[in-house]
């Protein structure tokens, strides 16, 4: 596992230390400004009144901060439409993300452990099969998956009418429970756990399950947390698939709802931006607190998941 190296070699050339470095700082700060501006625009507009947001170019609210945009967006109002409650969409997303994260973490940790430390027939074959999934672009499996999910839906509803898959959480969660990238990352880490630990645990009478739960999981919290974060972010931002399988508000996630609002948002910029902030903020808060895990995970794997 390559660590993220932060220490640059001390390159102190004697000449033009100051001017060049100041230039670099100015350039970087300019770049950072460009990076921040869209976020600032979003936040600023979301706090403006309808008039200021839609008819001026101000980014900073000058005609008074209007916090009412947020309740409007969260609980629906006449301006945005009574049924368009981003609070509900947020709650849907939270539920979907929670189920995905828990399910994915449990089954991926188990599989990664088995691939890394257990001998069973067909291990290499199954792992090779999993790696093949990395080469499959999502667009290619969209149509077949839609039909498979429809068939499964029909099968389950024929057992009992309430066991729906379409427009319900199973179709949003279950197809994404297996994440090859997470398994790969965790397997790399589990393989590095010294065998002496396993020998010691076995002498103490622990089996694989016990060893996994009380030794492996505690010492590998960092990679597990990384996979949790990736799962969180990718499920939160997912658009392609949820757009196809959700047909009303009961399970519509916030990304889908926001894409619809963007289509007919029109001149309600302040509300659109407030909704964007609502969709963005949880992820950003998570990112600020766990920034190091994110960058470490991404630099070791190079993928978002």
């Amino acid at each position, binding site marked *: 596992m390559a660590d993220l190296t932060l220490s640059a070699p001390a390159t102190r050339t004697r000449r033009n230390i100051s001017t060049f470095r100041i230039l670099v700082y100015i350039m*970087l700060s300019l770049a950072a400004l460009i990076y921040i501006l869209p976020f600032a625009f*979003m936040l600023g507009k979301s706090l403006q009144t309808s008039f200021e947001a839609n008819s001026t170019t101000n980014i900073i609210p000058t005609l008074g901060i209007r916090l009412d945009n947020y309740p409007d967006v969260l609980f629906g109002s006449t301006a945005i439409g009574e049924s368009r409650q981003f609070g509900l969409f947020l709650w849907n997303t939270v539920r979907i993300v929670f189920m995905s994260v828990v399910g994915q973490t449990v089954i991926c940790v188990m599989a990664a452990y088995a691939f890394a430390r257990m001998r069973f027939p067909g291990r290499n074959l199954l792992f090779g099969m999993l790696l093949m999934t990395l080469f499959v672009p999502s667009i290619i*499996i969209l149509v077949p998956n839609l039909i498979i999910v429809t068939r499964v839906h029909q099968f389950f509803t024929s057992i009992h009418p309430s066991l729906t898959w379409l427009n319900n959480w199973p179709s949003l969660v279950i197809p994404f429970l297996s994440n090859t990238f997470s398994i790969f990352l965790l397997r790399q880490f589990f393989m590095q756990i010294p065998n002496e630990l396993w020998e010691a645990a076995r002498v103490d009478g622990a089996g694989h399950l016990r060893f996994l739960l009380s030794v492996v999981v505690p010492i590998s919290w960092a990679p597990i947390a990384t996979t949790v974060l990736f799962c969180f972010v990718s499920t939160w931002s997912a658009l392609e698939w949820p757009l196809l399988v959700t047909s009303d508000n009961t399970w519509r996630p916030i990304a889908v709802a926001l894409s619809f609002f963007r289509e007919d948002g029109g001149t309600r910029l302040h509300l659109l931006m407030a909704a964007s902030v609502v969709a963005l903020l949880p*992820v950003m808060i998570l990112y600020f607190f766990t920034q190091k895990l994110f960058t470490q995970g991404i630099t070791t794997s190079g993928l978002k998941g």
Partner: protein
Amino acid sequence: MATTSYVAGVQAETVAQRVSRSRAQLNEAILGLLFVAPVAIIAFIFELFPVAYGFFISMQGGVNVPEGFVGLANFVRVIGSLAYMIALAVSLVFVLVGYNMYRRGVEASRNGQGNFYRYLPVGYLTAFATLTFFGVLFTLDFSYALIPLGVLLIGVLCYALLQPRNGDPDAANDQHLAFVLNSWGVGLMTLSAVLLTWFTFYELHRISQPLLNVLSQVVTNPRFSYVYPLLPQIAALFGTVAAVGAIFVAHRVRLSADPDAEPRKHGFFGIIRWLFAAIALVLVIYVIGAQDALRQTLTQFERVPRETLRAFTRVTPATLVDTVSQWNEVFTMILGLGFIGLAYFFWSRAKHRETTSGMLSTLLIAIALMVGGWMFIGELPLAAGRGDTQFYDSIIRTATYAFLTVPVQLSLGLLLAYMLFYEVRFGKGFYRLIFFMPYIAPTVATATVFAMLFSNSPDTGPINQVLKTFGLPPQEWMRNPKGVFQIIAEIIGGPNVRLPNFLIGPSLPLVAAIIYAIWVFSGYNAVIFMNGLGNVPKEMFEAAQIDGAGRWQTFRHVVFPLISPTTFYLTLLAITGTFRTFAHIWVLRTPDMRGALDTTTVYIYETIQTASAIKTRPYAAAMSFLLFGIILILTLLQNRLTRDKVFYG
């Protein structure tokens, strides 16, 4: 007495140990399979099986769910008769892969590691069973599934019987497994190739035969009446000759690339080779004649009065000509590809020629063949032109998007990473936090903001305000389908300037999407490049500085070569990523643009969402497979081109 009991005790202990060990192994195997089961099942149902199922769907009719087999019709609707060509090319790839596996097995058995030939019949048997089993699976009628399963079982039993008993069990087993896989692969590849080729020509025949019949009745051309009943047979023979030729070329190219190869043997195989070449030549001449007859007939058909035609068929003359000329196109393209393959063969042989004149003559042959092949392939755009123009446009749009995004995002990322890594000591973490933010942020939210930043409004659109402060006219970013370079040229040179079509550049909405992608992925690339820079040994950097290398020289000659693996990896990721890109383009898109932002994924997605009788979901599946093919080819191409330039420590 004491000794015997001691020995017995040891033996008893080992037996008990062995029993407990084997029980532990069994437990571990069961537990391991249980651990993997959920992932394996889900990955199979929702990630791997859909690929095969999607391929099956792409050959079906029906609007939302597949209803009945239509063969290659969907593919033909997307890319015209090029679809037949691609099917044939895929079967050629099957043949070559099969040949490669066969060669590997034969080489191993030549080295005395077993007898590969004994495995071949079993391999064909098992492959046959496998293919039949999949065929049965796809009909979703499981009543016949037992027969192929039974044959498969027999094959597996035969394999078990073939397993060597004596000698070192481990080594023999390894070779045994390799032989099993190779023989099965050879069987699978050859059978699939034969099936696919047969199927392709069958399809072509099925679609065009009724119209060919009409043609032969409406137009009386003696040459054509000889040719047309034989068309599928000629085509099949032609395909076989092409496949055998391809194996031959692959074999020779490999031999000439291998300096230790045994010297060429003439004799019986030499005669066969000449015979084969003669047959191929005759076939080529015959096919060219057949093509000419077909073309002549079509020309004559143009003069036939429409009333005469109406007595035979309801099909419009244009459709008739289109369908029938597919034969011509397929023949021509096979010929062209064959010529180019031969040219490659001669080209690779040229460098092994001893004399200059020999080399020159071989090169000349190669060039002549290449020119000939190119002329034949010239028919390709015409053949492809019958397909879905929206699909082509979307591919061009995607390519433009990739071509303008990837270099910029990579170089900006490298620049940022380099500055951050070598020049900044305070606030490095802060800058990284900022630069990485867009990548983590939900795409829908940030893309919505960009849609607002690039607003059409000349008075409140932020980007338009920026343009205004520089004295430039505001633009309708989310509407104007004009090319951006055309717009720039109009601003500079006045409203009457017209740029040539290939220079007008991407439309304004696409420019917005490109800028968004650069904004997101530069930061991401910067973070990964920083990791790559962290792996550059400090000593090398310092040595370059001591030797008096400037910043640029150090970068160009020390740092850049050392981070080439990172660059390679990021390029690969970026190129395939741009061809898969979806979410932000979907969000930026409005009906106003009239498709100016429809990249291939978006076009496919829209087809899925609004499936109609013309653009069905199976049609979308066909398009997605073509896109997948493009991504695959790009990946392979990039691997091939940059392999030698990457420096791994």
